């Protein structure tokens, strides 16, 4: 066994992680450089010489250490483990041709620690038991292969394994609750309904009397109205933007329609002819006297109404009817004053005889 190998192993045992090694290496480098820089300017020549010699020795030691560490950290394990090649191992009788390339790559990926552990185990069991060692290494390699493959491929659940797991879990389940009684099979459930409205009516409610609310319930009318309004408000959403507002107004008929028609909304009134507006004398005929102040007055009224385009025909009729009622109420006064000829009339409503 070479001393270098022993040294490397020793160092490996001490330093577990790569980072620590790096930190160590760095510290060694820096301390050596710092010390070298410091010493140059400050001390005397004699002291300098002594100290320089000491420093040089230390530097050499540090450099030796560094080199050894670097050798240990190198990934080419063939250098790190020359023992494998040196040992007189029996060549394997069977060569696995299934994985020709992978084996070489993966054998390097087994951690150095693992290999070390394997070697220790083989030693403890039986010294120079190469077969055991080889078996262990092969097992390790196969495991690493599997792990690599699994890592690269996406996970596919193994059906057999899941089935096994499920069966296992089922055996583990414990029924704590009492088993529920089966619901007594109802006769109704047995009936299968194909056509709901095709069958004959059952006549259950033939003799039923559905009583309405007896007596007058005091109604709160305002509350009812407000309740209805609230329901409407809840159902309809107010317009969230200008477009929706315009749509709503168009539907309500509030929006002008283009081209602008000044008589928009007065379509019914447009169908009424002018003769109905102008010729109002027929409405005077049944009741108004042909001469006298009353007639004069009513003629003025009708002239004014016929010239008015803003009233509907119904409104004009209402005006005339009101005057008719008014004069009818004041009939006695009219007769007294002599406005109406005092003649006992056959038809009382009419003012004219």
């Amino acid at each position, binding site marked *: 066994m070479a001393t270098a190998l022993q040294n490397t192993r020793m160092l490996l045992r001490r330093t577990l992680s790569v980072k620590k090694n790096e930190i160590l290496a760095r510290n060694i480098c820096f301390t050596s450089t710092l010390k070298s820089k410091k010493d140059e300017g400050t001390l005397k020549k004699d002291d300098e010489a002594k100290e320089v010699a000491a420093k040089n020795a230390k530097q050499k030691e540090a450099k030796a250490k560094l080199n050894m560490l670097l050798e240990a950290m190198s990934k080419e394990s063939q250098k790190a483990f020359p023992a494998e090649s040196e040992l007189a191992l029996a060549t394997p009788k069977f060569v696995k041709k299934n994985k020709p390339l992978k084996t070489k790559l993966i054998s390097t990926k087994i951690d150095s620690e693992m290999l070390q552990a394997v070697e220790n185990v083989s030693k403890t069991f039986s010294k120079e038991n190469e077969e055991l060692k080889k078996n262990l290494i092969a097992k390790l390699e196969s495991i690493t292969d599997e792990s690599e493959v699994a890592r690269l491929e996406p996970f596919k659940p193994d059906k057999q394994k899941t089935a096994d797991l499920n069966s296992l879990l089922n055996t583990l389940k414990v029924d704590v609750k009492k088993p529920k009684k089966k619901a007594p099979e109802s006769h109704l459930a047995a009936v299968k309904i194909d056509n709901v409205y095709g069958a004959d009516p059952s006549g259950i409610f033939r003799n039923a009397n559905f009583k309405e609310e007896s007596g007058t319930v005091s109604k709160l009318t305002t509350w009812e109205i407000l309740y209805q309004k609230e329901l409407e408000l809840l159902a309809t959403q107010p317009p969230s933007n200008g477009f929706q507002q315009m749509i709503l107004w168009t539907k309500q008929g509030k929006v002008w329609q283009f081209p602008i028609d000044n008589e928009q909304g007065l379509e019914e009134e447009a169908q009424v002819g002018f003769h109905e507006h102008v010729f109002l004398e027929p409405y005077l005929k049944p009741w108004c006297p042909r001469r006298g102040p009353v007639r*004069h007055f009513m003629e*003025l009224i009708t002239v004014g109404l016929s010239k008015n385009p803003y009233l509907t025909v119904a409104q004009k009729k*209402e*005006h005339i009817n009101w005057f008719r009622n*008014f004069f009818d109420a004041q009939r006695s006064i009219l007769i007294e*004053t002599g*406005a109406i000829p005092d003649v006992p009339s056959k038809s009382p409503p009419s003012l004219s005889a």
Partner: protein
Amino acid sequence: MATTIMNRLFNISSFICQNAAQLLKNGANNAVKLDQPVRKNWTDWRMIKDNKRRKLLVQHAPDRLRMQAVKKNDILPAEIIEIGQKMLEQLPRDSGITRVRNRCAITSRPRGIVTRWRLSRIVWRSLADYNKLSGVQRAMW
């Protein structure tokens, strides 16, 4: 320095005392002006009264027109005219058109109204400057 702080404290406390009822209420009632007519949120009471008058005017307008026709007359006998006059007096006073005042729709200002927009000249001007009135432009010629 101390006096101003005391003043502020006093103002705050007085405000709280005066409006304690409103402040204790839950909800967003505090947002509304406290001295404003609450029921319908018109600008002021004069606006409410004007609105009432307008409604009565619309309600009694035809009766009023007919009675006025009977009253303002020299053809009919005097007795009829007198009767017409009395009937007119029976109608509510607020149904008269002369009692209605064109107020500003926003500020309730009784004078300086731009009729077409029903706004006082001040409000009108502010809206026009912000381009809220269609077709209104600063005059320049």
